[in-house]
C-alpha cells in the first residue's frame, strides 16, 4: 500500500514536471527527473506513459546522439530529454487549430525529408529553391525562419541547415521517409 502511494505521488510529480515548461525548451532531462523522483524514475515514467496512452499522448525519450540499440543504460537515460507528445497523428483540420496552414506543413515536410536524404545537412539556398517550386518566394523565407525559430531546424554560419531538437522530439524520421517512398503517385 505504501509502495502504491509512493508511485501515485511520483506520477503526479512527473506529470507536473513534464507538462509545464520549466526551461527555455520544453521537456525535462533524465537527471532532473532522477533528482525529483528518485533513482527509479524510469519506472515512474513508464507507468505515466501507460496512463497517457488512453489520452493518445506519450512520454517521448530523445537520447543524446543516436538511439541506443538495446535497453538504454541509466547514464544514457540521465542524459536524455523527456517530452510529452501526441501518440497518434493529427488530422489536417486539427493542424488549422494549431495555427499551421497546409503550405507551412508541406514546406516543413519537404525541408525535413530533404535534409534527412542529404545525411542531416543541406544548404538553405538549395532547400529554398526546392520550396519555391510550389510556394510563393516571399512565403518560403518567412516559413524557413519560422521553422528555425520553432526549433525544427538550425542554421550555421555557412547557411547550412540541420535538423534541430524539435524535429528529433516530434518527428518519426524513419516513418516519414518510408511514407514518402511508399507513396504511389496519382495518375494525372
Amino acid at each position, binding site marked *: 500500500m505504501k509502495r502504491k502511494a509512493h508511485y501515485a505521488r511520483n506520477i503526479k510529480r512527473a506529470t507536473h514536471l513534464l507538462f509545464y515548461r520549466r526551461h527555455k525548451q520544453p521537456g525535462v532531462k533524465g537527471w532532473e527527473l532522477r533528482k525529483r523522483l528518485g533513482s527509479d524514475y524510469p519506472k515512474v515514467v513508464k507507468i505515466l506513459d501507460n496512463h497517457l496512452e488512453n489520452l493518445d499522448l506519450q512520454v517521448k525519450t530523445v537520447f543524446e546522439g543516436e538511439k541506443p540499440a538495446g535497453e538504454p543504460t541509466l547514464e544514457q537515460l540521465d542524459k536524455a530529454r523527456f517530452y510529452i507528445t501526441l501518440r497518434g497523428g493529427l488530422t489536417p483540420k486539427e493542424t488549422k487549430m494549431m495555427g499551421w496552414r497546409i503550405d507551412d506543413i508541406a514546406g516543413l515536410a519537404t525541408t525535413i525529408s530533404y535534409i534527412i536524404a542529404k545525411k542531416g545537412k543541406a544548404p538553405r539556398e538549395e532547400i529554398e529553391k526546392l520550396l519555391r517550386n510550389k510556394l510563393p518566394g516571399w512565403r518560403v523565407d518567412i516559413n524557413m525562419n519560422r521553422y528555425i525559430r520553432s526549433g525544427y531546424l538550425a542554421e550555421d554560419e555557412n547557411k547550412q541547415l540541420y535538423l534541430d531538437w524539435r524535429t528529433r522530439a*516530434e518527428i518519426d524520421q524513419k516513418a516519414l521517409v518510408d511514407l514518402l517512398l511508399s507513396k504511389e503517385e496519382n495518375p494525372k
Partner: protein
Amino acid sequence: MSSKRKKLGSEHLQRVIDTCKSVEERGLDPFNVDVDDIIEVVRKYFPEWESPRELLLDAEAIHCLASVIKLQGDWVKHRSTSLYTDPFLLEEKIRRLSREELARLFLEAWHPIIELEQISLHSLAEAMKYWDGLLPINERWLKTSYLEVETGATTREELVKLRILAEKTFLEELEVFWEELKQRVGGEEKIRYWDFIGADTYSETIKRAYIASFLVTYGYATLEVHPLEEEIFIKPFEKPKSMLGKKQTISIPVSISFEEWMKWKEGKQN
C-alpha cells in the same frame, strides 16, 4: 628546391585546401575527393618545406583532408542506417507530390510536443504578495534618483583619514624603525629580539615583528641565533647592506605566539 617548384607546390596545396573546403561547406559528395592522390601530393612536397608559412600550408591541407575523410566516414555510417535513402529518389518524390499529399503524409509521422501554460494558485498568491509590497513607481524612482554634488579636489590628509593613503610610506616607516633599533642598542652591538619587538599589546608586537622582518630582509639589520641558549638577537647595521645576489640568504622562522608574548611580558614585569 627551386623557387619555381616551391611556388608550384604551394599552389597545389592551396587547390587541395579549396577543394576540401568546398566539399565541406557546400555539402558535395566527399567521395569526389581522391584521398590517395592528395596524400601523394602532400608527401611529395613535404621534405622541401622550410619556412613556417610553408609548413602551415602543409598542416592546413592535412587538416582539411582529415575533415573530408570524416565526412566519408559519416556517409558510410549513414548509408548503413535504416534512414538511408537515395536522395535523388526522395527529391523526385517530393517534387511530384502535391502540397496536400505531402502535408497528409507528414501528419502521420508528426507527434507534436504537448505543454501547458497555466498560472497556478500558488504563483498567483506569490504575485499578489509581491504586488502588495511593491512601492508606487514615483516613490521607487525617488529613491534611485541621483544627488547632484559639486566636484572638488581632495587633500592628502583627507585620503589618509579615509585610509586610502598611509600616513608614512613603508620605507619611511622602515627607516624610523631602524633608527629606533640603533637607539635601543645604544653602546651594545645587539639587542634581544623579543626585547625589541615586544610591546604592551599583542597586536602591536605582531606589527613590530612584521616590520623587523623587513629590516633584516632589506639589509638594515641582521639576526644572530644562539641555538643552545635558545636566544635570538637583532643587530643593526650602520648602513643598509644589500645581500641580494651577493650571498646565499636563509630564512629564519620566528614564532610570535600569544603564549610566547605573555611569557615575555611576565618576564619583563618580574
